[in-house]
């Protein structure tokens, strides 16, 4: 169903963002813990990275229909 598509996209988007957020957070935490002496910025950075990636993915996902896909024509 086309109407469910959007919902699915959003679910995907949310799930992805959650993952990404989590992953970012995790990595951030890891990095902050591991590499950056428990500073908050890698967490935030990681979270931000995560959210950003998620946002971008979400956006791309939602926009995918309108994006023109080009193909490189094979040389003949």
């Amino acid at each position: 169903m086309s109407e469910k598509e959007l919902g699915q996209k959003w679910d995907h988007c949310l799930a992805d963002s959650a993952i990404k957020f989590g992953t970012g957070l995790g990595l951030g935490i890891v990095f902050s813990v591991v590499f950056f002496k428990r500073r908050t910025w890698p967490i935030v950075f990681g979270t931000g990275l995560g959210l950003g990636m998620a946002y971008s993915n979400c956006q791309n996902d939602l926009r995918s229909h309108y994006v023109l896909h080009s193909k490189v024509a094979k040389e003949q």
Partner: protein
Amino acid sequence: MLRVCWKGAHAAARQCVCGKVKAHPLQHCRKYSTAGDSGSSAGKIVAASLLSVGGGLGGAILYAKWDPKFRANVEKSVPYSDQLFEMALGPPPPPLVLLQKKPGKIEPLQIFSLSEASKESKQPKDKAKKSDPAPVEAPAAVEEAPAPTAQTLEEASVEAAHIISAIGEVPSVPAPGTSDESPPGHTAAGEECKDHHEPELKERPAEEVTARLAQQDKAEQDALAALTAGLEESLGSTAKTTLQAIGAQEAALTAIAAHTNKLKEAMDSETPPDEKSSQWKALNEALSDRTRAMEEAEEALLKAKGELENLRGVINSAKQSKINTARPQILAAEENLHSMIVDLDKVVTKVQTAQTEAKIVSQYSELVNEAKAQFQQELANITPETQANWKGLSGKLSADDLTSLIAHAHRRIDQLNRELAEQRVREQIHIEVALEQQKLEDQKALERAVVSTLEHSREDMRLEQEKKAQEVREVMEAEMRTQLRRQAAAHTDHLRDVLKVQEQELREEAQEILNSKMMEQETHYRRLTQEQLDTFTLDMNAAYARLKGIEEAIDSHVIAEEEARKAHQLWLSVEALNYTLRSAGADFPTEPLEGAVGVIKENCAENEFAQALATAIPEESLSRGIYSEASLRARFYDIRRLARRVALIDETRNSLYQYFLSYLQSVLLFEREQVAPPAKLAPEDLDTFKLLAYANYSIERGDLELAAKFVNQLRGESQRVAQDWLKEARLTLETKQVISLLSAYANAVGLGTTQAP
């Protein structure tokens, strides 16, 4: 809330019920009391009504008993009242007409018996007039009968009345009593009922004539029998008495003869004197016998004469009765009478002659006795000493006595001689005188004899004449009978001829009539048959035409039926298809319409239109089925919501921020959910929200098509979101359209082929 109301209602009801009655325990009493009160008043009403009804019924029955007309009326009007009346009063009184008829019937019979005598003479004549001429002898006999019976009409009528009153059922006074009534009343009654009688006379048939004749004959025979019986009786008695008289006379005769003989013997002095006394005794006895016999003979004669007179009287009465058949008997009786009279007379004459002889002898004996007495007296005179009874002195007589006696005897002889001479002289005179006397006596006797013989001969002649007359009459009768027979034979011959001729004529006439009728009938029959044939051919033609018409009608009907059947099948299959459409659930589509459509395709293989339509159904619906409108409707709301949310998203704006904005817009934009779409869409109407509102309105009104149209106008993400829905809607609409077309077509075909009842 409902329960509260219910409870409230209950309470109210209970209140109402209790309101009428003060408390529950009193409810029953009140009820009983009310029942009692109402019962008493009801009882009063019931009693009053029963009383009135009963009174009405009783009054009706009593009045019906008194007035039969009322009873008849009620019986007529009220259905079962006749049974009620019969039960109560008994059967209805019989109609009065019968009662009045009966006395009328009885009276003519009674009067008839009364007026027998007056009508006897009329009746035979009337009968003779009115009876059929066929029996010739009967009228002749009838005509004969009145003539002889005219005089003894009364007697015969009396006897006939006897018979009629005995035979008939008339409960009236016996006829002889009535006929003995005073003649005026008799004749008056006869006069009165002449009118009654005339019609009765006219109506009497021949059988009654013969019956009456038979009755008359019977009466005659009865009279005859009575007469003969009387005659015989009297004859018998007369004969007996006559015989008795004759016997007595003959006995007297013998007695006289004996007496005379004895006297003669006694006169003869030849007998010895011893026997004289016995002789004289015998003589006395004979005399007494004679006298007794004479007396007896006289008595018997008187009786015989009396009986003969009776017989004569009876014979006369018999003669007066004038019954022909009795004539020979009368004649025989007369002959008997005559012979008896003759015998009696003969015997009487014999007795008379004997008597005269006896007289002579007695005279002689007297003379002798006288002479003897005289002689004795003389002897006594002469010989006074001798006893008178000289008979016993024959031994005692002395010579003197003897001589005196002889002298006396001589003297006596002389005297006697002288007397003798005198006597001889006077003899002639005496003889003449005696002759004269004798002549006279002879004359008288002769006259008597002549008279008696004349009478006898007259009687004989009369009897002979009567006999002859009888014979002649019989001969005449026989001749007349033969003549009559001849006449009857001639008449019958004549009748036969006449009848033959008539028969011939009638036969010819009948034949003619028959022929004419036959001709008529034939022509009629021919005409009828011709008509029948014509009508028949007409009918046949008509029937044939109708048959043809019917056949054509049936053929067309068969075709129409076929069409109808096909249409029906088509319609059924379309209905089946419609039904399959209903199998759609809330979220799932219908069954695949393949089967139903396949059926349709089968059913209307030769119907191009249907085939085309059937093939026009989209593949998707066939294979997968379609969604129902309801589901589409329900889905539309989701679509709407989503479409509203992504209203701003299209190719140019499709970032997430736009999504957020679009969402914000959808949240903040307040509009009517449903807006009636205009007839024409203006470009500003192509706004998502407006479109959705129009579509919502349409779909709320059930117009999926319009909604789909509006939804089709969506652009951008909204379009993408509504894509599937639109597809489904399109599919559904297409299928539905085809199906509706098919069903309309099926209906049309069905209507077209359906025949009105």
